[in-house]
């Protein structure tokens, strides 16, 4: 990768993506190393134990180490320090920074103040490009990345993993179907970019009409707090929940994915089917993040 920072999946070319996925496959086989002198800063302004642990593990498996800001409550951020100041200080200690922040554009802003690479690990409802790389790795293993029909269902408005995945998939020969309640459709900016790339995109409010065509179904959670009243939430959420019976209408080799954690949008009986791929997807986080860090830190592989 030629980028200094990884802020948005929109930056990623097909070549970038394939480079990281190939390297990830070799790390999954043979393990890593070569980064004994490298230190990675973990700045998580909102809790995400899983993403943080996966970066922590990836860096340590590469032979390097991590430093962690700790929780927001225990840090100077609580005292009102700006993000720009925090990253400038941490950039002085580390070789790269992984940033998770509740505001859209946080990683972009951070990248304007430091010389070390910034990796966006989720900025509000914006982007989550490293999740996308592990999603693509999983999709490639299970269904390939070309001549692919993918359904993306749930909260498409606030779902940052969806925004990043949709952008990255435009590099491949894919047909994208977006399934959501009217109020949680893709935001204007994401639709604009898909349109600009000439992507094959369709939007739906119900899964039934597209389910039989899909090679991959990517499910995300619809959050209760997005709805002003509980009844409206219940009405909507029920329509975007799948179970083993729902999937009887699907292709035998449909791959069902989810960025996790799930609540009840995928019933437990789906876990027993051959469609369930979300745990494998989560495991892929470590080798993919190893490959990404290796590329961005200019490590052993290059």
């Amino acid at each position, binding site marked *: 990768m030629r980028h200094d920072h990884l802020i948005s999946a929109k930056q990623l070319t097909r070549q970038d993506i394939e480079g990281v996925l190939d390297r990830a496959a070799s790390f999954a086989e043979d393990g890593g190393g070569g980064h004994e002198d490298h230190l990675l800063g973990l700045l998580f302004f909102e809790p995400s134990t899983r993403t943080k642990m996966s970066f922590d593990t990836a860096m340590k498996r590469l032979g390097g180490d991590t430093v962690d800001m700790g929780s927001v409550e225990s840090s100077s951020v609580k005292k009102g320090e700006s993000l720009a100041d925090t990253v400038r200080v941490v950039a002085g200690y580390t070789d790269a920074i992984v940033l998770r922040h509740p505001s859209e*554009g946080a990683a*972009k802003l951070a990248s304007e103040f430091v010389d070390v690479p910034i990796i966006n690990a989720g900025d509000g409802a914006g982007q989550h490009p490293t999740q996308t790389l592990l999603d693509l790795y999983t999709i490639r293993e299970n269904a390939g990345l070309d001549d692919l029909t993918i359904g993306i269902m749930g909260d498409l408005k606030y779902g940052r993993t969806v925004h990043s995945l949709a952008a990255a998939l435009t590099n491949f020969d894919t047909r994208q179907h977006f399934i959501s309640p009217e109020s949680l459709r893709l935001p204007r900016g994401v639709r604009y970019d898909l349109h600009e790339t000439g992507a094959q995109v369709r939007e739906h409010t119900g899964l039934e009409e597209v389910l039989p065509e899909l090679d991959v179904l990517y499910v995300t959670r619809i959050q209760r707090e997005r709805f002003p009243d509980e009844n409206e939430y219940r009405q909507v959420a029920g329509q975007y929940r799948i179970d083993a019976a729902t999937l009887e209408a699907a292709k035998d080799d449909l791959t069902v994915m989810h960025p996790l954690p799930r609540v009840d949008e995928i019933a437990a009986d789906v876990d027993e089917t051959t469609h369930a791929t979300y745990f494998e997807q989560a495991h892929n986080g470590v080798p993919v993040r190893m490959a990404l860090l290796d590329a961005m830190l200019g490590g052993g592989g290059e």
Partner: protein
Amino acid sequence: MSDNPERELRVSKIRDGTVIDHITAGQALNVLAILGIDGSGGEEVSVGMNVPSDRLGRKDIVKVEGRELSQDEVDVLSLIAPAASINIVRDYEVVEKARVTRPTFVSGVLSCPNANCISTQGEPVESRFEVLDDAVRCVYCDTIIREDLPERIDV
């Protein structure tokens, strides 16, 4: 000037300053807002609103005495008045016609409507928008502003 002299009299001639003509009808007050003119600075300003125009049907026109626009100001004007023509006047003569071109980016003149955008949260940065064909987009959070653009002008 090609305009009918009778129409031209609706707003008085200026000696030195800028005439901004062919402003999209209804946008004159937003143009003044972009220029930071609210009357309190004592500027001598004439405004014509919904004036008949051959080219636009109706147009607005703004004349500012004693003030020449910078290219930055002209760039921002282009966002809300893409057809505007800008004439610099010295001693009653038009000495220069500035081009309205749409810039690639505008900084510090629009505020992002997304309350969760990092650019609205007291960080040491100016707002920054990429100019698209018919809209602008926040470089931080990707929010697109189209119809409600004048309301986001923050000058």
